């Protein structure tokens, strides 16, 4: 009996209007009191002088509820305490730090996944024909041919350097196979003034900007001609004159740094933006959150490009995040975002052109997710057949090859022939092999370069260390490598 009563009391309590009339009166009075002292609900300085409207809406709500005939009110209590119409009409909203929000009596959770995934922007079909109804930026012959040639050069360069590592001639290499379209099309859509903060799978941008095959080889061999003076592992390219920041191994550190560079660039008032790359794995780093959040808050002109190639070494995206890829994360930070087919060079080109313009015009960050597949292994230290099926790799290498698709389009336009293809491939291969031979034979950086650049000026302790090292080498010349000039 007692239980029944208590339960019925609970139900009755639930059916009662949310606020009893007497309480309502009190609320209005206190609201009035609040408004007269010009305090918002948060009690802060009055950034949102909406208090009076709040007061008026509560009065209105009070009246409507109070003067409604008994029967209908009772009827409403049983079915739903309030109907949606009331809310749309009266536009009831609440002030909170962060702005006004309308409120709803319905407890509705936002679903963790929408019914449909965000669609992916694509221009070229697999057959090389533009999809009907596709809107894209036209590419002229010169640019298109240069794009295709660069993609071929990138692919061949990756293959040959990979082989060189396997032969023991360089210690490490990392390919961009499968992501040539992202590399080259992005580079083509940007200008030389745009500052690049790469992850490490974007050498195509340097290639487009004029980095020669010899310069790539020099860095991989760490010889005297390397701009990095032999300080870094292979593929950690960097070049001031190409506006390409030296690659740094820790993942995603370049993302908040990009916001900082953009902050500085903004002060220069240039017609340029900062472009920061990351992979799908990099979006798990804390720096991804910090970088995007900050860029949005600071309104920094950064174009964040995420190469979602499905794999972070052996971690597939299903184990990396549970969201619908990376594109949906943009909205969480207040950043406009788009998903594009990363294997479609034209789509990537159009997207980056549009995004770049938005970034510069509105001085706000944009996030681009380029879907692709990492055809190669993560690096030469990895054998991806251990964690993914070989036929899957083969499928993406052949049927979904970005080069093949773009080549079909260029070919159809009459801008590229098979002869051009074989000629290009032959000559590039020869050039690369020569470059490697030359790089291998070039001297390594001299001893002085071990101690320079630690600080802007050589400090006395390093000067002493260098001196004592030289003396030791002189005394024991046979114990030191002969190809390091002293």
């Amino acid at each position, binding site marked *: 009996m007692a239980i029944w009563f208590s339960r019925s009391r609970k139900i009755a309590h639930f059916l009662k209007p949310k606020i009893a009339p007497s309480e309502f009166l009190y609320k209005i009075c206190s609201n009035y009191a609040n408004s007269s002292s010009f305090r918002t609900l948060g009690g802060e300085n009055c950034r949102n002088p909406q208090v009076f409207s709040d007061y008026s809406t509560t009065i209105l709500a009070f009246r409507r509820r109070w003067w409604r005939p008994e029967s209908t009110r009772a009827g409403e209590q049983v079915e739903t305490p309030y109907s949606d119409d009331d809310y749309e009409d009266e536009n009831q909203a609440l002030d909170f730090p962060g702005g006004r929000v309308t409120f709803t009596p319905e407890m509705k959770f936002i679903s963790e996944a929408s019914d449909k995934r965000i669609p992916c922007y694509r221009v070229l079909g697999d057959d090389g024909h533009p999809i009907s109804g596709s809107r894209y930026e036209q590419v002229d012959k010169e640019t298109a041919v240069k794009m295709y040639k660069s993609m071929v050069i990138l692919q061949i360069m990756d293959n040959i350097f990979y082989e060189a590592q396997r032969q023991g001639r360089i210690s490490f290499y990392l390919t961009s196979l499968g992501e040539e379209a992202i590399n080259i099309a992005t580079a083509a859509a940007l200008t030389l003034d745009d500052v690049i903060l790469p992850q490490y799978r974007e050498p195509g941008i340097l290639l487009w900007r004029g980095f020669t095959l010899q310069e790539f080889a020099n860095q991989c061999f760490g010889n005297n001609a390397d701009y990095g003076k032999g300080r870094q592992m292979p593929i950690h390219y960097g070049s001031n004159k190409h506006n390409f920041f*030296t690659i740094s191994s820790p993942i995603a550190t370049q993302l908040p*740094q990009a*916001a*900082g*560079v953009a902050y500085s660039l903004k002060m220069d008032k240039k017609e340029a933006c900062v472009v920061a790359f990351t992979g799908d794995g990099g979006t798990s780093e804390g720096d991804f959150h910090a970088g995007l959040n900050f860029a949005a808050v*600071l309104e920094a002109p950064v174009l964040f490009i995420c190469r979602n190639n499905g794999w972070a070494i052996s971690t597939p995206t299903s184990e990396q995040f549970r969201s619908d890829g990376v594109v949906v994360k943009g909205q969480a930070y207040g950043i406009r975002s788009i998903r594009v087919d990363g294997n479609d060079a034209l789509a990537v080109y159009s997207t980056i052109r549009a995004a770049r313009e938005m970034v510069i015009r509105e001085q706000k960050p944009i996030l681009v997710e380029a879907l692709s597949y990492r055809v190669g292994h993560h690096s030469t230290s990895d054998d991806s057949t251990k964690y993914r099926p070989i036929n899957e790799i083969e499928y993406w290498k052949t049927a979904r090859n970005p080069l093949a698709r773009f080549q079909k389009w260029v070919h159809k336009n009459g801008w590229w022939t098979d002869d051009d293809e074989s000629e290009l491939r032959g000559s590039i291969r020869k050039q690369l092999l020569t470059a490697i031979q030359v790089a291998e034979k070039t001297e390594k950086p001299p001893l002085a370069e071990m101690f320079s*650049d630690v600080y802007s000026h050589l400090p006395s302790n390093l000067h002493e260390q260098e001196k004592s090292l030289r003396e030791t080498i002189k005394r024991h010349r046979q114990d030191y490598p002969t190809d390091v000039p002293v």
Partner: protein
Amino acid sequence: MLGVIRQRVTCRGIPTLTLEQGMRVVASRTFSSSAKEITVREALNSALDEEMSADPRVFLMGEEVGEYQGAYKISKGLLEKYGPDRVVDTPITEAGFTGIGVGAAYYGLKPVIEFMTFNFSMQAIDHIINSAAKSNYMSAGQISVPIVFRGPNGAAAGVGAQHSQCYAAWYGSIPGLKVLAPYSSEDARGLLKAAIRDPDPVVFLENELLYGESFPISAETLDSSFSLPIGKAKIEREGKDVTITAFSKMVGYALQIRNLKTNEMVFPRMFYNRIRVRVLRIICINLQSYIFYNCMWNPYRLPGILAKEGISAEVINLRSIRPLDRSTINASVRKTNRLVTVEEGFPQHGVGAEICASVLEDSFEYLDAPVERIAGADVPMPYAANLERMAVPQQRGLATDQVHWPQLPKRYKELKLTKINL
């Protein structure tokens, strides 16, 4: 305040000075002193202000630096003067704003990144070390990083383990960084100006308890072009019997040991593995009485216990942890033949260990006694006030504890007699 003073005078058993005498000293310090004095806080604020006005690329970024005028009021008035573009309040993300600062420095600005305490810098330490410190080297000079990371370091009072660690040794071991630790207002002004002007990344370790301390300052120091050289230690007091090296707050303690007049000196022995770490305790001080103590005593005017025993100590204020001024320290040790290093941080791999190794390498034959390291206890900083006192080198004098100090002068005297002549 008066009640506190009265309580301190009667309870702590300081024999000589009465309340009236104390108040007279206070009065004399405030009104009749002719040398100008500024607090470390004012010194830092003025240095920041002058550097920001001299170079438009300098900007300050950190939590609470703008509207709140700085978590410790170091950046007071700067937001009003320079606007939100140059004094940037950030969300709570050390990794975020440190990364942004490094990126801005890559592209030519000169950020000053403030950490609320260096304990929080650990959340951003990858950016400081892997990006800021190493970039110039890895890029072969193409990317220079003229950035300053500053904030309070080391123990404050009653803030517990996660707010009290000293990072001098951590950052001091990284090639590519410069690490500075000012003590007085002159140090603070000169070194911060030098740090901001320096093209390399600098870690600037301040001390929360020193912010409110005043130091006399010369007109030359107040000039806007003033700066101190990085990598030079300062000999605060000359001496001939023992060298005491210290940095930051411990310099004040070392000076007071040297100069202090008291009958009670306590050295309870704390054991750290096989190495004994002696904690110097001269006068009982918790935070309140530390302030009181500074009001009451002028360390520059009183003869000290060491002096009373006929021991003249040379106090070296390191100022620069990296590069460490090995030549000054060694020259001093060659003169005095004995060395005591004082620091607040953990003993293992500490600054004292590095100084000890340096002196052994360069001046072994000159040492008459083993180098003595005085450091904080090898425990995370406890919170309870009594435990906290025991975990860092303190100045504390109570007649109740074991007194080892009277033995110390004898030991030094004996060793002096048996000095080995080479």
